[in-house]
């Protein structure tokens, strides 16, 4: 049976970072969301959100669809299959960690 140290070692740092976890959590509840909505829901600045999205896209956890709509850039973002699995796995790991920390099996 995996212990506390195994659970800690298994945590994906890319997913666990608070801002990225916030983005992935919001995306896990929808099919896709645009850049503005992600900014409004996380409170991140444009630059910060853009940087986190790039990291998540490079890791293959999200897909991005960048277009020009009415002469303005528009970005739609959604979770990839790998991203959906990663966030689900992360919640299970966090739950395991919490159980271990409380000493419950």
């Amino acid at each position, binding site marked *: 049976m995996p212990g506390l140290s195994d659970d800690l070692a298994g945590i994906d740092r890319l997913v666990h*970072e*608070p*801002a990225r*976890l*916030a983005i992935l*959590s*919001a*995306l*896990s*509840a*929808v*099919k*896709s*969301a*645009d*850049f*503005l*909505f*992600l*900014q*409004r*829901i*996380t*409170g*991140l*600045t444009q630059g*910060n959100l853009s*940087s986190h999205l790039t990291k998540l896209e490079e890791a293959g956890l999200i897909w991005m669809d960048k277009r020009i709509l009415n002469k303005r850039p528009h970005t*739609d973002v*959604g979770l990839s299959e790998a991203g959906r699995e990663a966030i689900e796995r992360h919640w299970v790991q*966090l739950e395991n960690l919490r159980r271990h920390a409380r000493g419950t099996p």
Partner: protein
Amino acid sequence: MQEYERLRTAARQYPNLQGLRMIPFGVFILAIAPRDLGSNWLGGPGDCTFTLPMLLAAGGLWFLIGRYYKNTFGKVTPQTSPGRQVLESTGLGVGLVAVIVIENLWYRAWPGLPVSPIGLALAGLYLFLGVRDRRWYYTVFGGAMGIISLLPLFLGTTVGDPIFGTFGLVFSLVYGVGLVLTGLLDHFRLVRMLRPLDGGSYAGSE
């Protein structure tokens, strides 16, 4: 953990919390309420000279307010199928307005009924939504609609009784005010769930 659950809830409920879109329909229902008192400038029941353009205007505003939400808060595609999405978005607005017309015709066709079946169905719908989405004001609205629908029964009369001739008016007023208030409360709830565009709790994290 709670913060991330808040994010999930806000993203999931975003399309349903665009409450300002329901206000034109609420105002429309309030505007046509005097029609239930008989013929007046609205033309009385069945006359669509004024009510149809007003309904179309409410529908137009529904779309325009939808654009406001898209430009101000962004756009979300829910996980539900496109067919269900169209059904939910158009059905909620147009369907609920149709209810008031059906109600009007119903109690004129069957004036002996001691309850309003359409009103009870609406009450059930709002109670269900209130419990499912934890929106207490929907539960209150559903309760109010339920009481109004059962009012003739409590008074020992029928929906078509001349003594209770203003049933349609009372029903429309409660329904219209309810749509406006729940719309405003939905909007305020949405604004509280989202953050201003100046950097929030995750700002600065890398």
